[in-house]
């Protein structure tokens, strides 16, 4: 076992959840998503974001609309579909359960209570 590998596996697991949660806050343009995640200290290559977005869109969790941009080609703005919102809800529940469990296990004396922190990664 290798520490980077394990850490990376952990991050990989929550990547979709993070993207969905950024989009949930409002329509988002891919570079916005990148910026927001960077601000939250979660660095991701743009090249890996686009395929993920496409997959989520193909799974009908996301929809997008074109918006003319003043600089450069038109932009795709992504938003959650109802199905996506539902999906997000379920992921969220799972995440809190998991986070609580991990918290409880790692800091046994202090049970994690402030769930709301997770709604806003920033």
């Amino acid at each position, binding site marked *: 076992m290798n520490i980077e590998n394990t850490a*990376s596996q952990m991050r990989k697991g929550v990547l979709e959840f993070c993207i969905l949660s950024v989009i949930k806050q409002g329509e988002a343009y891919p570079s916005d998503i990148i910026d927001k995640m960077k601000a939250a200290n979660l660095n991701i290559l743009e090249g890996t974001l686009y395929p993920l977005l496409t997959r989520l869109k193909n799974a009908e969790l996301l929809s997008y609309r074109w918006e003319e941009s003043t600089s450069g080609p038109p*932009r*795709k703005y992504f938003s959650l579909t109802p199905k996506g919102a539902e999906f997000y809800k379920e992921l969220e529940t799972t995440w809190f359960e998991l986070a609580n469990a991990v918290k409880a296990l790692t800091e046994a004396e202090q049970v994690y209570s402030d769930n709301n922190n997770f709604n806003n990664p920033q």
Partner: protein
Amino acid sequence: MKQVININFQGRVVPIEVTAFELLKNYTESLNRHFANEEGKEEIINDIESRIGELFQERISKGATCITDDDVKAIIKSMGNPEDFEAMDDTAGASSASSSSYSQQEQQASSTTSTGHKKLYRNDNDKILGGVCSGLANYFNIDVVVTRIIFVILLFSGIGFLTYIVMWIAVPSSSTEQIGGARRKLFRDPDEKMIAGVCSGIGNYFGINPWIPRVLFLLPFLSFLSRWGHWGGFWDFGDVIRFTFSPTSLIIYIILWIVIPEALTTSEKLEMKGEKVDLNSIKASVAEEMKSVSKRAEKFGKEAASTINEKASAVTSDVKNFSKRSRGGLGNVIAMIAKIFAYFIIGCVTFAFVMALIGMGIFSIGVFPLKDYILRGPWQNIYAWGTLLLFIAVPIIAIITWLIRKIARAKANGRILGWTFGSLWAIGWVCLILLIGSIARDFKSSSRLEEEQVALVNPQVNKLVVTSSMPFSKKYYGRNWIRFEPFENLVDEDTAYVRNVYVEITRSPNDSFQVTMKRQARGNTRADANSLASLVKFSVEQKDSVLLLEKGIAINKTDKFRNQGVIITIYVPVGKQIRINKGIGWPVHIGRDWDSEWNNDYYDGEQNIRWQSDVDYIMKEDGLYTIDGRKADGWNDRESSSKKMSRNRNSGGDGYRYDEFDKKADSLRRLDEIKRQNKLDSIEKAQEKLDSIKEKIQNSGTEEPGPVSMYRMPVNDPMVEIR
């Protein structure tokens, strides 16, 4: 000074340096390759391109006159190279220590090139010969010095050399994964395939017409088919070897079929055909080389930091495990080598086992028509079928299934299948043991029938020629491609022939030829055996000076084969000649030292040594001789098996030299008994003399005579005395 061109990129006119455009083009091509298997490939690439276009626009709006190399490089860096995505998939984002990047969560498993495995490449950046050692070192996460030392050690045993060459050919270069450095890869070509596209893939790889490898594959196979017809009569070991040699191409084809992946996607097909080496690709690979050292270091850092891939097969993960620990000490390296060696041995044993099973399978299928002549009752038939299907076929099927599942990476039901095959095979073992036991019981007792005299038409001939008659039509000859001793090749519809005919030659007590026949068989009880033996039909017929013996004994399906046989004893009067014709096919005993249990010592080959067919022999008082005076070997007359004779036999080497000398001199062609006795006596004397000389020499101890002179002593001495 750089040339600038205008390109239409995502609907916008973008001024760009020519070199930057090449970089951009290579980048989009590499993206195309990377996402070839991805659902919605166009969309992803379009998104990325439009993002790049946006970034271009940003630069230009900031006042740049055109897009430069640096701009493109910066953009590519922020988007990430496909090899970075892949590295993140493969090594699970191992670079997080430096850049803490994330990789995609999932990747479609259908792709053969981008499944989640860490791939073994020859390292083009750190190579001495082909980069095999450093590639292995990267793969197993060990120092390249270690792999090189291992290979140098292996080199002395010869295996290393071969392994290196094979890996050089088989393992792709790391440059194939770099932008612009794509080289040909070996794929099976599904577009031009005849069977599985192996040959057309090879043709693509070497840039030759696919018919060249096809013909090369077919040539040995055709000769294999053409030789098929020859198998009828001459099934011996040599043919078995040639048999396994001939379909080698078939086996190689199947192995290649399994090993070489099929080119499924467009990018794989392009890789298969190889990219044209033009100015652009050369430029690109140069550009790749010029990438900063830190970048390369980072890339290898990723690989080096990567760890056991859980999907990798058990073997490689074990080896990797060991190699990982091998940083600790030399002992672990040795343990790893031992482990590799052990796997190698296990592999060899498994292979041999499979081959043996297949051989048994072919053999039993060949023998199967004979089963009606051997097996009695329903139970033995059940055991035989059980053995064939469960003991032989099941493991073959099991191993094939295992291979297919391994290739297809099937995981479900593995345990159930294992148990099923295991228990079926166990039943097969039981069947085999029961079959052998039950057949052995049927062969338990031997018959005890008296010898019977065969009436001879003309017992006073001077020379008897023994030859075989062919009682059966040639119709069935060569029909069977396998021989099962003692069954003849000729199996009629309801009759089989066995070659259990033994001829013995001994001295006649009077002056006429005599022939006796003893019929034999085996059975469950002595009575059974006797009654079977009395049913044996075998005709011995004399025509003038020719003694005609049947070639085989007919066995029918009701009486079954119980090792029925006959022993023909020919009594040759002293002074008369006998000759055995070539091709009679059965072994000939000389002398009579067998008893009723002859079956046991029949295979004692010494009895048949130096007996030559188509040679005239003459009977003398003490045995059979060739016309030119050499003793027929293996003669062992009961009457003369006195102490003296046995002494003679023990020093047979001396006697033989005698005869050779006589032959040369051409004087003592027909020695009478007295002279011979003199000789024998003189040999004894000579030996005594030798012993005394030996003693003397040993006592004096001054000069050790060489072994040659010691050996010659007894030979030369009596010669002088006789003359």
